[in-house]
């Protein structure tokens, strides 16, 4: 086995350089620079208004930065890699009038997923929901909707997962199941970013805890307690 210094350097899955995002006079991101290695689970923490969601939306290509750049999977052309991203937002990004399978069937078409019915049923089962459920998503409980939203993000088997508050309004048992699913995905080589206020759920699962404050990353540690103690 070669010594660690002789191993080829792993190119980052995501690289953010001098990222600034301003909404009028308010700067949501103030020069964020960071590199994120592939196959790791990152928990992004911070108070409300710290810039967590804006950072995630910028990485998803939904919010163009005012200054700075983002490279995903080695390219700054985010549009060219959007097929390899999975994005889950705070709202469900689902049509309330359609069932889970109908919703996912439509999004599978957008991603040109092969064998789509099978794939939709698989991801629905992966989040512990029933694919045969015919009732519209609008009649789901909030927790079920969150899980279906995660299923939608997993549909295209993305290399990078961007999850904004995936555990909000989810009961503790379901949240733990979601964490265990995320851990499995990370072990399968996916790079996962989770913005959350329920950091304790990711203790033992996340590889790094990133603390954001006033639009900047102020600490990155592998241990949640160290992160919380330094704040």
């Amino acid at each position, binding site marked *: 086995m070669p010594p660690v210094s002789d191993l080829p350097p792993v190119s980052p899955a995501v690289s953010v350089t001098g990222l600034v995002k301003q909404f009028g006079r308010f700067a949501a991101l103030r020069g964020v620079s960071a590199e994120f290695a592939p196959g790791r689970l990152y928990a992004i923490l911070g108070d409300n208004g710290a810039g967590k969601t804006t950072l995630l939306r910028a990485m998803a290509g939904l919010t163009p930065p005012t200054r700075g750049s983002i490279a995903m999977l080695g390219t700054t052309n985010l*549009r060219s890699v959007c097929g390899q*991203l999975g994005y889950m937002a705070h*709202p469900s990004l*689902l049509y*309330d*009038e359609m069932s889970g399978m109908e919703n996912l069937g439509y999004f599978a078409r*957008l991603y040109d997923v092969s064998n789509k019915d099978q794939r939709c049923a698989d991801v629905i089962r992966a989040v512990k929901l029933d694919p045969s459920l015919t009732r*519209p998503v609008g009649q789901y409980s909030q927790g079920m909707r969150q899980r279906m939203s995660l299923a939608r993000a997993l549909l295209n088997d993305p290399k990078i997962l961007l999850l904004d508050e995936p555990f909000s309004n989810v009961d503790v048992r379901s949240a733990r199941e979601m964490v265990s699913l995320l851990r499995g995905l990370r072990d399968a080589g996916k790079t996962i970013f989770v913005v959350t206020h329920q950091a304790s759920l990711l203790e033992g699962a996340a590889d790094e805890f990133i603390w954001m404050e006033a639009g900047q990353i102020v600490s990155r540690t592998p241990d949640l307690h160290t992160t919380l103690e330094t704040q």
Partner: protein
Amino acid sequence: MSTVASLARATLAKDLRLEWRSKDAINSMLFFSLLVVVIFSFSFDPTAEESRRIAGGLVWVAFLFAAVVALNQTWAREMRNQVLDAYRVSPAPPNALFLAKVIGNFIFVTVLQALMTPLFIVFYNLRALGPAYQLPIVAALGTWALVVNGTFFAAMSLRTRSREIMLPLLLFPISIPALLAMVEATGAILTGEFSARFWIVLLAAYDLVFTIASLFLFGFVLQAE
């Protein structure tokens, strides 16, 4: 191109399914058009000849305002739960979404026209003295002109605070040439006093120019913050 067509088909099928279940657009359009027909028929009692002269304007006013209702609904549906973001992060081309929305709105307004035309004929005692076969052509071209611009400007005004007001403000001025052509062509066919050919050609050219321009520009509108 085949990707655009197949994704537009999938999006159209999804939109028709949503409309079939909610009936948001068609109900409000029908209600609005019915009001126009009934109120105008109560307001004045025209002779058959007068009816033919004013019907072009009347019919298109009803359809134009009803179409605005449908156009607002189309995008409001995508803004609920921010579903539009799911489309924006996908590799699907923006053109496919635009095309599906335009065709969907065209279907809704055409259904409305099919339901309302018999009422217009009865209430206003209408009968075409010119070549009646041109009426469906004018209806199709005119409707396309309304929905292609309307869908584009409704998307543009999506993120504005008062989008219900913004849409007519943007749409009506730019639709004036098309509206003029629709009204004149319909009047010409109903009265038989002059040929509608010039207005039909103008409408077709208008449709072509604005369809191509909207298809090119929609990507910028969709990705705008």
